[in-house]
């Protein structure tokens, strides 16, 4: 019984994110004209999965107390790349997919290497590398276009057995293959340790560099998977600056909604996924209530503002004002 309580305390952020998502989704689907149907779920999940991948990517870096402002640009770059090389014969397509994922991981690894060996702050590093990644994306796709293997795209954006959205299944698979092993490995533990207190981690003989490098590289890989999926949905590649930026910013919002602390060491990628889904659902709520789409950005902003302010209610419980300063 006591053990269960400790687990609950540790996972509180993630559980909160799941709860927020469920509430949002119930409101959404119960008011949706089509009701809770496989179609509604598929559309919702296809939209949500993109942000979910990027948010997972962001979460990995945030757990080490870093921040990745280039994550949206890796997403854009891999999108452009996929619209170029994921075509042709099945073998070509296979290598194309592998190539896209490798490039994503490479981008993350570059970020990691600069942060670790260059000893620069993550925030400025990723601002600069973001510009580079965007530049490369622009070089690949000066104008929107390209194509992607449609069979593959349809497979990943359709449904399995008529009711399970393939994108959601893929997301689940990625969690199982990437996040679960990482979070339970020694390196994953080290990533949490580094994020929670880097000096203490160093003193404890934790391999800080390996932990950070792994987190950044996997983050790039996940953003790459996101970019690949974007291509599957749109069949094209586009080096859209605004969209890349928006994904970066939304990923931070999703991570925070998902209970991952921006100060590091706390939260999980699972939380980030639900944060992303909740954030997407918030944006879509307006459509089901039949509001003018013009109000969507404002509504999304206000809900985000309220959501982050809710966390502040804990302040009223603080009796020692020094606790304000962490």
């Amino acid at each position, binding site marked *: 019984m006591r053990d269960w309580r400790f687990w609950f305390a540790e996972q509180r952020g993630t559980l909160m994110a799941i709860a927020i998502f469920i509430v949002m989704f119930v409101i959404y689907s119960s008011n949706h004209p089509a009701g809770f149907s496989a179609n509604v779920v598929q559309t919702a999940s296809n939209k949500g999965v993109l942000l979910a991948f990027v948010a997972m990517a962001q979460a990995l870096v945030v757990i080490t107390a870093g921040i990745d402002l280039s994550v949206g640009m890796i997403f854009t770059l891999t999108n452009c790349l996929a619209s170029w090389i994921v075509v042709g014969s099945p073998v070509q397509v296979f290598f194309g997919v592998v190539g896209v994922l490798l490039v994503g991981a490479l981008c993350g690894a570059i970020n990691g290497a600069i942060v670790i060996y260059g000893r*620069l702050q993550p925030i400025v590093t990723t601002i600069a590398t973001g510009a580079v990644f965007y*530049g490369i994306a622009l070089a690949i796709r000066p104008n929107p276009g390209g194509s992607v293997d449609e069979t593959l795209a349809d497979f990943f954006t359709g449904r399995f057995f008529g009711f399970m959205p393939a994108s959601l299944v893929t997301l689940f698979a990625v969690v199982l293959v990437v996040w679960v092993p990482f979070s339970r490995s020694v390196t994953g533990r080290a990533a949490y340790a580094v994020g929670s207190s880097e000096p203490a981690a160093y003193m404890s003989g934790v391999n800080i560099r390996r932990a950070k490098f792994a987190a950044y590289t996997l983050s790039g890989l996940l953003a790459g998977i996101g970019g690949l999926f974007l291509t599957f949905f749109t069949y094209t590649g586009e080096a859209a600056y605004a969209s890349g930026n928006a994904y970066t910013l939304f990923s931070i919002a999703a991570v925070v909604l998902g209970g991952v602390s921006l100060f590091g060491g706390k939260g999980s990628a699972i939380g980030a996924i639900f944060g992303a889904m909740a954030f997407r659902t918030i944006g879509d709520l307006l459509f089901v209530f039949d509001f003018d789409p*013009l109000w969507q950005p*404002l509504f999304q902003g206000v809900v985000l*503002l309220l959501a982050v302010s809710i966390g502040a209610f804990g*302040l009223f419980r603080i009796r020692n004002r*020094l606790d304000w300063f962490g």
Partner: protein
Amino acid sequence: MNALAERLPIFMRRMDPAVVTAFACILLLLFVGSLYSSNFLSPEYLLQQLKVASFLGIIATGMMLVILLGQIDLSLPWVVSVGAMMSSAVAGLGDVGAAIAIPFGIFCGVLIGLVNGVGVAYLRIPSMIMTLATNAVAQGLMVVYTGGFSPQDSASPAARYLATGFIIPTVPNSVLCWLAVGAAAVFLMTRTTFGRSIYGIGNRERAAYLSGINTRRVVMIVFAISGGLAAFGGVLLAGYASKAAQSMGDAYLLPAIAAVVLGGTSILGGRGSYLGTVAGVMLITLLQSILSVMQMPEFGRQIVYGIVIIMMLLLYGRERLQR
């Protein structure tokens, strides 16, 4: 190394190596540029660069104050746009409107900054997410206001005069604006108790609080100042282009942060000088200008821009090794 340092004049010995390097990089850029075209060293070109830099300079001043606190203001893009759009909107309301256009634009920025400040200082929401949220709200408000179309109002005559006119012959007014803002910022940072508090909070807010500083009020005011300066930058930009545009602020967020950091201000707060920010702003402006003069395609500009920032930071912005 030490012997060399001792031979330098005192004022140079006291200077932050980051600032010195940044100015050296500016000279290098000018040199490279002059190899490319002799126009590069002409007074007209340099004044033109200074004019372009002044918009970024004003915006980066607010960002620098926030970064000195160890925080960040990501609401900058839409605060810039709000400043520009609101002041232009008011300017369309007749003579009174035109008269209060500039103060009203700044006022709107201060309001958003205050919301940021209340969230960060009093509700203890991490600034990165708080300012992100207000940015989204500001964007939402503007989208609703304009109905999704680009705004039709044109900038007030006063804004146009400030951005493009000349009080002193050959020196653009916008440069004078930056000069005024910069002088005020330097005074604030170095001579006032408020400035001392900013540095103190940036180093360790806990210790500042226990020293009896009203840290929450200081943080809130700094965010308000940052909002006001971003909006002022927006007003000037609207004056420069004679009207506001929806996403005119997007192009200023990352350069503003980069300029501050290239100028040697620690992104973790508590350390940095305004001279450095000036150097950073000029550096960024010159870099962008050279890349466009060389007619490098957009993708190349982005890549070079990013790589140059990384390189320069690797030169002098590294953290100390633990061991």
